[in-house]
């Protein structure tokens, strides 16, 4: 174990996999000479050279397609989206090529590619550069989607993603690159895709949250602990495949659930979690599942508006209180 930042954990995972397997390469804008817009690929060009670490022009659809084509014939490219916002320009390649080639070819051409980069709300980057992007991917059959909240998960899940034989969408966060945490240095350490984790044990209510929202839920939990409310927090880590078993086990224990997402909310991860929990644990629920989501608006630039756009600790606390009927309100209000 060593303490390192989320950024360093990603960098270490890339380094280990590049060492381990010559078929692995990194391709994207500014990943080489510039060492990454967010420095996740720091030192890689120096260590592995331009054959393995490939700088590209600004042509997301083009270089993503190049990665997919290379994967079709045996390479294992890790394509960096400088920020995931730009993946929209490559979405057709991701959805209609990467996700479907194995199926359309009857299993002849699988596509072992990882598409990674930061996504989600950032700091005053405004509407085009600050949006929750997983919503474009987890509903697509043939894609796996990862959102790692901690340095350890970042390393363990990225390694599993690179070793997976299928396309994996791996969305990091600008706002987490500098957080620190314990990370196993063992190059054989991986975390399997599709396993949620209980971040905090509790007995009164289950909160499902990931990335920045998971940390905000933690703060909410600490504050509520003072009032004797015991909150359990489950982090899905992988959104597709979703580990419903772990989430449902927690809900069956607490009988109450709040799902949090930074996204706009309409038909988002919160909707799916709410639906699954209600279907599978209806009789165990003492209150309807509460969704806490971002405000359904584009991301504004102004600092105060931006702050109001994503769920606050206060809104999470309110929702928890609502499912516990602690604030005299009726159900279901959002």
């Amino acid at each position, binding site marked *: 174990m060593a303490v390192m930042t989320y950024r360093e954990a990603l960098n270490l995972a890339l380094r280990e996999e590049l060492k381990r397997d010559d078929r692995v*390469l990194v391709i994207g804008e500014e990943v080489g000479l510039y060492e990454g817009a967010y420095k996740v690929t720091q030192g890689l060009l120096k260590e592995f050279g331009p054959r393995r670490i490939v700088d590209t022009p600004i042509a997301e*659809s083009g270089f993503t397609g*190049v990665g997919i084509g290379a994967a079709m014939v045996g390479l294992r490219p890790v394509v960096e989206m400088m920020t995931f916002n730009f993946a929209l320009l490559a979405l057709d390649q991701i959805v209609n*090529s990467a996700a479907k080639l194995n199926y359309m070819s009857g*299993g002849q051409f699988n596509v072992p590619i990882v598409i990674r980069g930061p996504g989600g709300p950032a700091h005053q980057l405004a509407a085009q550069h600050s949006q929750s992007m997983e919503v474009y991917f987890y509903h697509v059959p043939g894609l796996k989607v990862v959102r790692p909240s901690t340095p350890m998960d970042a390393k363990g899940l990225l390694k599993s993603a690179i070793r997976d034989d299928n396309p994996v969408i791996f969305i990091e966060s600008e706002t987490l690159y500098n957080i620190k945490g314990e990370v196993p240095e063992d190059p054989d350490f991986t975390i399997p895709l599709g396993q949620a984790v209980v971040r905090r044990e509790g007995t009164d209510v289950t909160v499902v949250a990931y990335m920045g929202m998971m940390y905000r839920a933690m703060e909410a939990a600490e504050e509520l602990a003072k009032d004797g409310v015991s909150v359990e927090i489950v982090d899905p880590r992988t959104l597709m495949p979703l580990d419903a078993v772990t989430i449902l086990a927690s809900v069956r224990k607490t009988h109450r659930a709040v799902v949090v997402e930074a996204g706009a909310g309409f038909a988002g991860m919160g909707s799916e979690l709410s639906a699954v929990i209600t279907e599978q644990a209806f009789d165990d629920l003492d209150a309807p599942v509460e969704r806490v989501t971002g405000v359904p608006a584009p991301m504004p630039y102004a600092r105060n508006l931006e702050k109001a756009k994503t769920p606050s600790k206060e809104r999470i606390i309110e929702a928890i209180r609502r499912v516990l009927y602690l604030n005299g309100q009726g159900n279901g209000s959002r």
Partner: protein
Amino acid sequence: MAQKTATKPKTAAGDIDPGLARRIYNDMVLIRRFEEKAAEAYALGKIGGFLHLYIGEEAVAVGATSAMRPDDYAIAAYREHGHCLAKGSDPRRAMAELYGRIDGLSKGKGGSMHLFDKSTNFLGGHAIVGAHLPLAAGAAFAVKYRGGDQVVACYFGDGAVPEGEFHEAMNLAALWKLPVVFICENNRYAMGTSLERALAETEIWKFGRSYNVPSEAVDGMDVLAVRDAVGRAVARARADGTPSLIEARTYRFRGHSMRDPAGAVYRTKEEVEREKLRDPIVSFRERALKAGWLSEDDLRKIEKDVNDLVDEAVAFADASPEPPLSELLTDIFKEK
């Protein structure tokens, strides 16, 4: 950079040996007959969805493939029966795929627009116009990455040229010197849209200048001219990874798809009839006879063998069962 300024496409000279003549004639006739049968099957409701026929354009896939090695890669759009067969796929499995049967190349899951054959390095069958050009560059990237000397043939229509991915793929291939030969099958129409209504520059080979890649136009109805042009491009690609853009001027004898049978709204009967006089199979047949590469008997024999093979393919497809329902949920992900 060897850039032909002649806008008049080159035609081929020179002699070829009978073995090659036999193969070329066989392959062109095979594709023609295969698709004529497919059209019949479509009319009978045995094939569904979209069916795009390559009839009239056979010289491009056959000429190009004849200039390449079996271990070279090929990738095409949704009008790809010809490229798949030229690359050596079993016509029976190709037909079974069109029928949506379990013995199809893709177990019936892909259909006419999505033929794939790993055993021949045929990378498919792609139905999003322009999307397979970056994939072709990617396969070439992998070849170079592995230090191999294979070349990738990427076939696409004139309709793909206005798409951004044409530009992105050309630039990346040129910038990184990826061994790919971009072969534009210019049949002058994208569905009902003629070249003049789609491109500000209708001499497609000229786009290669923007990427400093060798480019030329060639008579796509002359199988040997295509073979020569592609041969030059393949030699460059194998030597040092230089990509090329070849504009093969050809013509689609049928409608865009079976749903556009006549293809008559946007072009005149006269034009179609005139173009049919350039039938690549007929002209190669005459030439092979005149040059003495093949005798009338040789040609007849090839035609009969091909007919038998295609009849067998149809019977095979007809006899093949539908995929079991379990196939709906397999291949979504590759399991270790």
